[in-house]
């Protein structure tokens, strides 16, 4: 599980962790039943306060993304797609926005971006097999 914390843009660190875990679950890189790292281990890995990680896990638990098993750690929830349609849209919108901003800076036309997305989808489908 790879999470990257940045202090540049002011987003509180626990929210960065929550958003990235949601993204990892949505993209299938974290599968239902996968065990989350212990709070202390993740805090040391990310070099952030353990309370911050604990708060992120609490938020994820409240949102149904992860489930705490008594005395046995925290796991990605088994229910299919715990992320609601609004949440999904929110995650993707922010990604699309940053893609569009970058494309505008690079003077790339919208049609070319759409083509690129289709091309990449084909490549990813091939790689799956």
């Amino acid at each position: 599980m790879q999470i990257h914390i940045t202090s540049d843009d002011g987003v509180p660190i626990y929210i960065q962790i929550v958003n990235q875990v949601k993204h990892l679950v949505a993209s299938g890189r974290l599968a239902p039943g996968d065990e989350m790292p212990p709070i202390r281990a993740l805090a040391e890995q990310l070099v952030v306060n353990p309370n911050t990680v604990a708060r992120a896990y609490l938020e994820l638990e409240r949102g149904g993304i992860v489930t705490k098993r008594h005395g046995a750690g925290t796991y990605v929830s088994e229910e299919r797609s715990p992320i609601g349609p609004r949440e999904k849209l929110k995650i993707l919108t922010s990604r699309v926005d940053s893609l569009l901003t970058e494309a505008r800076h690079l003077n790339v036309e919208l049609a070319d971006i759409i083509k690129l997305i289709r091309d990449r989808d084909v490549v990813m489908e091939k790689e799956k097999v």
Partner: protein
Amino acid sequence: MKFPSPSSAESVVAITDLSRRFGPKVVLNDISLYVPRGSVFGLVGENGAGKTTLIKHILGLLRAESGTVRVFGLDPVADPVAVLGRIGYLSEQPDLPGWMRVDELLRYTQAFYPGWDMAYAERLRAQFGLDPAQRLKTLSKGQMAKAGLLAAQAHRPDLLLLDEPSSGLDPLVRRDILEAVIRTVAEEGRTVFFSSHLLEEIERVSDHIAMVHQGRMVLYGALDEIKAQHRRFTLHFETTQAEPPVIAGALSISGMGKEWTVMCNGGRTELPAVTARLGARIVAEHTPSLNEIFVAHAGTAALG
């Protein structure tokens, strides 16, 4: 400025109304702060803001001229043995005897602390990649900082006190030091107090902060709350503004032409109305980084 004081019962360090002059210069001006047990408390400020002077009061190296300093409920000047035995301290420039070897430093430091854990010290030494046979004077700046940290940590102090621990060190050594901070606090009940002018690292590891500027405290509290209260707005005006707009309660206003950035501490409910009256609209709202918050407060303090 007065800040609400939490109960001092659960505070590892309790400082009330502390002031200090050196000659005519007021180095600390009416500082009050409480460090909760188990917290990572970040002391933020520019060089010369009074951070080291404050830390020297906690260590009992300076007597409070006015106000009180209590560490573990004790006066560090009157009871240095009881206080210092439970503190691990790393100064900006660790003053270690250069002729000693790394293993000799560990044995030497052990003599001062009944709670010294040699197995733990050995584990940290190996983790830091320090050669036991190497003389301290031949260590690099980063290795020296690690040796100092090792000596400050291996008696498992209740309070780890770090004064600008990563000043002038490369990112890898800085990471080792911050990891030590996290390790310390992850162990039940231990507390870390550290000063830094690197706000990025304070934001990462602290849960409580105090910001000092020219000897005064400009900001103090739980980092979450401070972050939640501050907002950075971008205002767009219909016409070019020659002068910065006047907005009551704004910490700082910067920009030019039609777009201006306003930093606010609370009071965001009034901003839309104020903005509308000025003939502008809010085009963006962000949570500022600690760095931006500090700059806004330092500017306000300098003006006041």
